[in-house]
């Protein structure tokens, strides 16, 4: 929704500060496709989210991108222009629906939004050239067959994140570990936020109800929606947010919030009282996927995907962005240089954690009726 200006961008800095920093990004994004880097045969144009690749603090350049250029001779035009799936899709759908390209080789969209599935269905994506991606074998098993692209013909994961519950230890005597507490514990009334992404909130509540979010039925959806509605009507829920929950949570305006794992890694560095965990009934996992939009150069894009699936490179990126890497062997690589990060369960979740998370039904994500009901519950 909204000014869902933010998603990943709040990471690492305070809310206000980062919004200033992101304005050039917003403006650049508003400039649209035309401003692209020309797209000579030697250039790869890569659109990604804010603060979502390794950056050398001194040179302000990405070691990963520089190494890629050194190795392949392909220059990378890197655009930090994606602030929300909805907004970015709104920008690119015009040319795509007319069968035109958008001057990008790779874009990154989240599989808990409707758009990756929609773009596959509409034929707006180019197929990967798997011959150029021998490192495809490094993709972790859990990511091999997402429901929007079961054969991974069109997509490769960039990073994943988990959706769970964050709370401020100083403001509550009991740990907050269940969705039931968030929705119904009157001690938290008006001090709780939920996420405005349907998949995150409805999925987590479905799990609380004992339903399966990977295969959504009308009854299960209704039940979850009603349970959230009750919490909204009672005044329990203060707001629905993108990652704007980070500011109020750090300041103590919120006792608890539904929160993304990567954000919390950063917030905890400043505020040790913040705790994060998956709900007892299980949490959600989402994955940002690299996609080749219509007209993108398949060869160069595939070559780049292969490059970032090298465990050494994947470790380098994971150490910086703090999200869950989909590349086998990255943890072992990182352990050599940064053992502390390699042991962080939010960045390299163990099997027990992974067993507690699931994705959201791609069909349900594109169900216009569900989206409409969800948006109405958000007040709009």
């Amino acid at each position, binding site marked *: 929704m909204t000014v869902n200006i933010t998603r990943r961008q709040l990471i690492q800095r305070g809310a206000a500060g980062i919004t200033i920093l992101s304005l050039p990004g917003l403006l650049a994004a508003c400039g649209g496709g035309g401003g692209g880097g020309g797209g000579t045969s030697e250039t790869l144009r890569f659109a990604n989210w804010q603060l979502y690749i390794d950056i050398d603090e001194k040179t302000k350049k990405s070691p990963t991108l520089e190494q890629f250029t050194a190795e392949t001779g392909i220059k990378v035009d890197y655009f930090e222009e994606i602030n929300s799936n909805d907004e970015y899709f*709104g920008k690119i759908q015009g040319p795509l629906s007319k069968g035109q390209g958008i001057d990008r080789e790779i874009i990154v969209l989240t599989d808990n939004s409707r758009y990756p599935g929609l773009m596959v269905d509409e034929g707006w994506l180019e197929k990967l050239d798997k011959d150029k991606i021998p490192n495809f074998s490094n993709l972790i098993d859990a990511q091999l067959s997402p429901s929007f692209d079961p054969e991974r013909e069109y997509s490769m994961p960039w990073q994943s994140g988990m959706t769970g519950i964050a709370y401020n230890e100083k403001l509550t005597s009991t740990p907050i570990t269940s969705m039931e507490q968030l929705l119904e514990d009157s001690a938290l009334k008006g001090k709780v936020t939920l996420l405005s992404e349907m998949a995150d909130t409805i999925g987590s509540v479905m799990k609380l109800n004992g339903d399966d979010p990977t295969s959504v039925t009308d009854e299960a959806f209704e039940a979850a929606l009603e349970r959230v509605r009750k919490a909204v009507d009672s005044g329990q829920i203060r707001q629905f947010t993108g990652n704007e929950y980070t500011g109020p949570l750090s300041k103590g305006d919120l006792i608890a919030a539904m929160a993304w794992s990567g954000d919390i890694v950063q917030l905890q560095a400043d505020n040790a009282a913040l705790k994060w965990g998956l709900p007892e009934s299980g949490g959600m996992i989402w994955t940002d996927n690299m996609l080749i939009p219509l007209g993108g150069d398949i060869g160069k894009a595939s070559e780049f995907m292969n490059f970032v699936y090298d465990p050494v490179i994947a470790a380098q990126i994971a150490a910086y962005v703090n999200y869950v890497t989909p590349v086998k062997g990255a943890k072992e690589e990182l352990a050599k240089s940064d053992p502390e990060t390699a042991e962080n369960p939010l960045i390299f979740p163990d099997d027990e954690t992974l067993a507690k998370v699931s994705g959201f039904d791609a069909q349900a994500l594109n169900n216009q009726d569900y989206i409409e009901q969800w948006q109405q519950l958000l*007040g709009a």
Partner: protein
Amino acid sequence: MGSFFHRHRGLTPWVLLLPGIAWLAVFFVVPLGYLGYQSLQSGTFPRYQFDWAFVNYTEAISDNQEQLIRSFVYAGIATAAALAISYPLAYWIAFRTGRWKNVFLVLVIAPFFVTYLIRTIAWQTILSDEGPVVDLLKTIGLVAEDGRLLATTLAVVAGITYNFLPFMVLPIYVSLEQVDRRLIEAAGDLYASPVRSFLRITLPMSLPGVFAGTLLTFIPASGDFINAELLGGPNQQMIGNVIQSKFLALVDYPAAAALSFVLMAIILVMVAAYARVVGAEKLTR
């Protein structure tokens, strides 16, 4: 060129108008026409078909009454509050600040040096539950002990009022500034009390500024969505939030376009009625 304009003197105003007309045609009329075209389409994304789907309009009104009414109520309250704050302020700047006038005018405009979004995010901090404002209001009993300001109607209306304040202050200031001081002196010479000379001279002469200020505040405030988004909760969402959600989350462009037109139409009707009541023709002569 010179002799051309000499011979065709009547053309000059049109030539001067040309850049403005061209600008409006390209960036206002054409997009608006396209929006109108889109508002009469039906189907599902991305295969919308133009078929005179006027049902989009009836649905836009019937499905969103709550947010429509709320938007105009919020905008109305914010406009009234902005007027109540701005008039005395503009009066004071125009009549009492002497050579410091420009300093105070700069102070009024100063918030505009920061973008709208940042100013509103700053209000999140100002109104924060643990912040000084809420603390103070709790101490004097205006906010309940377990109460808050963020994610309430008050916060949204206060945010809108603040954000549009300069649009109210400046036109009122300009009209007050133009009041001929000799008229007020003359009224005094004729034994009019200060209150009477204010009511009979200053106030009527400043009404064009009030008229412009209320419009400049009310119109953008009714379509605003930033304040509701950042300072409100699910029960404070305005029509701008609905349009945004229909455009971006639902990708239902026809519904969003129709709703935009409905909003525009309601505002036009309200402005026309207001202009009639206040007698805009007399005011803007």
